[in-house]
């Protein structure tokens, strides 16, 4: 046996129709089909989901937490992107 561990999969569950899939954890499985079946047993024993996504963990690329400051810096000084930046008199309703 070359691989001792089955590949690791990340599991995403849509808890109800209309909501987005959310990461809930991970599990090991030999292929996508088994990953979905195992995810059903591990993460939805009490109807926690109506849909499951699985993706092999090795396929996920993540931003580097140590570089978060630089990465998100462009958004930090753009107060004009928020509604409260604009001064309007109180008489203007519903805006």
């Amino acid at each position: 046996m070359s691989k001792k561990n089955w590949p690791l999969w990340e599991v995403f569950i849509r808890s109800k129709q209309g909501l987005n899939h959310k990461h809930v954890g991970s599990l090991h499985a030999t292929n996508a089909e088994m990953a979905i079946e195992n995810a059903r047993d591990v993460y939805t024993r009490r109807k926690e989901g109506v849909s499951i996504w699985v993706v092999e963990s090795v396929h996920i690329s993540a931003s580097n937490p140590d570089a978060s400051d630089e990465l998100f810096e462009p958004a930090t000084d753009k107060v004009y992107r928020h509604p409260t930046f604009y001064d309007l008199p109180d008489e203007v309703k519903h805006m």
Partner: protein
Amino acid sequence: MTDAKQLSLEDNFQAKVDAEIKIEPKDWMPEKYRKTLIRQISQHAHSEIVGMLPEGNWITRAPSLRRKLGLLAKVQDEAGHGLYLYSACETLGIERDTLLDQLHTGKAKYSSIFNYPTTTWADIGAIGWLVDGAAIMNQVPICRCSYGPYARAMVRVCKEESFHQRQGFEILLTLSKGTDEQRAMLQDAVNRWWWPSVMMFGPSDKDSPNTAQSMKWKIKRFTNDDLRQKFVDVCVGQAEILGVTLPDPDLKYNEETGHWDFGTINWDEFWQVVKGNGPCNRQRLNARKKAHEEGAWVREAAMAYAEKQEQCEVASVAKVA
């Protein structure tokens, strides 16, 4: 890395923890924090898995279909808890087979409570009430643990635990309204499970040198003795409802502290069981090893099948192209 750089990383880390900002897998963390978490989470995962054995013993002999369904669902939940926790632990950079090896070689521990036998049906009730009860007491504060994946796994676990405790209590409540023999069986189970459950919170604070660091890192929120006291306080009233006596002649309400004082814990017994000399240590570990070894061919066959399927897909795609 220079000492100054290391120091500022550690300060940064502690500042985040102090501000209740969760630590996530790829964030910088002190090596000792990582090691402590791997030890604690894996020990917790192993406990969930080994914990299925004493209760599994009664699934085929549950007294009714209702009881069998409840017990089966509970034991299946414990398997789920083990899996949530193993995957939380793996985010710290340790592989699943290494974790299992550590359990099978005895390098990693699991909760000593599971080294006691389940000799009667009342034991299943007592486990739900006392063992899951103590586990809940321990686990609720871990939902706020500084390490994100562990905290999130615990939220999931805690949501499921309350059914475990209630099904156990209901079993005992039914026995308490039964025949003299059934009531005696109930009392006998409580007599045997009470002290081991009180011990589940671990050594007393004066003998837990690592508590201070774990509290500072917000892995732990309360000391062992604090949690133990809460547990005893809660159980006294529940025992009354069941009409059972907790096997401790020194149990007495303390007007001054507002808590129940209790007798001295037999720490000799505690350490004996931790060291492997409890009534079922060998049996439990052998059962785990046997299951793992006898399942090896299934794991290998499933992997081989998946690899072959993949090759077939590649070949058929090549043909079409």
